[in-house]
């Protein structure tokens, strides 16, 4: 049985190799390291703690089952996990069941909405983040919101905002750059 304190000193590449060899302790180290950040990202997209935790669990399960598809030359491990988490969250949001559940729970007077506290809040109303996103121009912030939190494609954003696709592309590129500068 591997000691997790020895494991945590290994490089990410080594850890992923161990995961590929079906060593659960290696995945546990990666979970401890990245789960909190991933949960934070996901929770702001799905607005329900229970669903967010489901997504987090599915993300690491997918990482375990698809470990061989991770290529260190193509980018960092966190980015790989982040994209899995984000896509899983978007699948959930777009799933018929999620939308139906939201509708059923919202429309009847006996029941709560899925997460009454979060339902009306913009995902940006979290401590520490509010300032940063508010520093973006409103239009950039809206684009980030649609793309990042709601999973719209650029074509869908163009439709939604009645904007030419070329303009959307240009503005999105500006938006992510600005956002990045705020963190640099």
């Amino acid at each position: 049985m591997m000691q997790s304190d020895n494991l945590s000193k290994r490089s990410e590449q080594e850890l992923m190799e161990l995961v590929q060899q079906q060593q659960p302790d290696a995945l546990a180290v990666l979970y401890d390291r990245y789960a909190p950040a991933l949960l934070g990202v996901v929770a702001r997209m799905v607005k329900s703690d229970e669903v967010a935790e489901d997504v987090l669990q599915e993300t690491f399960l997918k990482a375990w089952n698809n470990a061989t598809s991770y290529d260190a030359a193509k980018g960092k491990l966190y980015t790989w996990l982040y994209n899995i988490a984000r896509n899983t969250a978007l699948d959930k949001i777009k799933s018929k069941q999620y939308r139906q559940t939201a509708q059923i729970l919202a429309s009847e007077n006996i029941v709560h909405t899925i997460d009454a506290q979060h339902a009306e809040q913009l995902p940006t109303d979290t401590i520490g983040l509010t300032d940063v996103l508010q520093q973006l121009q409103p239009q950039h912030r809206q684009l980030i919101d649609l793309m990042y939190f709601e999973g719209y494609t650029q074509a869908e954003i163009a439709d939604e905002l009645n904007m030419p696709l070329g303009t959307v592309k240009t503005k999105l590129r500006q938006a992510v750059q600005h956002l990045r500068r705020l963190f640099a």
Partner: protein
Amino acid sequence: MTPQEYISSGLLELYVLQQLDDPAEQRNIDQLRLTEPLIAAEIEQIERDLYRYAQQFEQQPPAHVKQQLMQQIAASITTTTTNDPSSATHNNAHTTKQAQHNTPVRSLPNYRAVAAACAVLFLASSMVAAYFYAENGKAQQQLNALRQRSDTLTTQMALMGEDMGMLRDPNFRKIVMSKVKPDAKFMSAIVYFNPSNNQLYLMIDNLPKPPADKQYQLWALVGGKPVDAGVFDPATHLIQMKRMTAQASTLQPEAFAVTLEPRGGKPEPTMETLIILGKN
């Protein structure tokens, strides 16, 4: 575009976020990062910034998420049958409904044994149903259809396997309901109530299919008044009903009832059609 132009274009950020609409552009950058050290370095920096961005709103997940994850991983390593109905991703959505406190690995429900038990129960109840339906020619047709659907038994077992996991949650309260009219045809009716999230579930065995214009409706009797808990159709697995408000659940439902209503249900029950009643 020169590397510097790429860096100030915003395209690299979109590349990392997998938001480039154009797959050709993506392949282009895949190549560039191998040949242009400036671009490779910039992409790496973007990835670091992405992580720092997320760290701003880290949230510590509850311990049970990791536990369940590691249990599923352990199970997937030791599983030898390819046809295991309790596959990891299928269970995922439901395992978080289990008890929130720490469960030692030893008391983890053995899904295969449980699924096997459910198969026995399912077969037993269909055999009993066959006995009771023997006089009814129409029901005989239903029974034949049931036999022909034996390949869907695997799906049923999977659903039951998940249900059993949920039912082992010690928070769940079980309210057994009885027939109001002695000649009613169903075998058993149970309401499961989870006081920690006010979720209601219903399990009724062999409830006859109602006429097309009618539907069964569940009611919770709260403070003497019936409250709509949702309409449902006969099913062999646990049916999720409406969730109760915190107020209704604090008052504690005194009883649960099932009536037969016009399809779609009604805001008030038709008490003459009361089929099942169970006191809390």
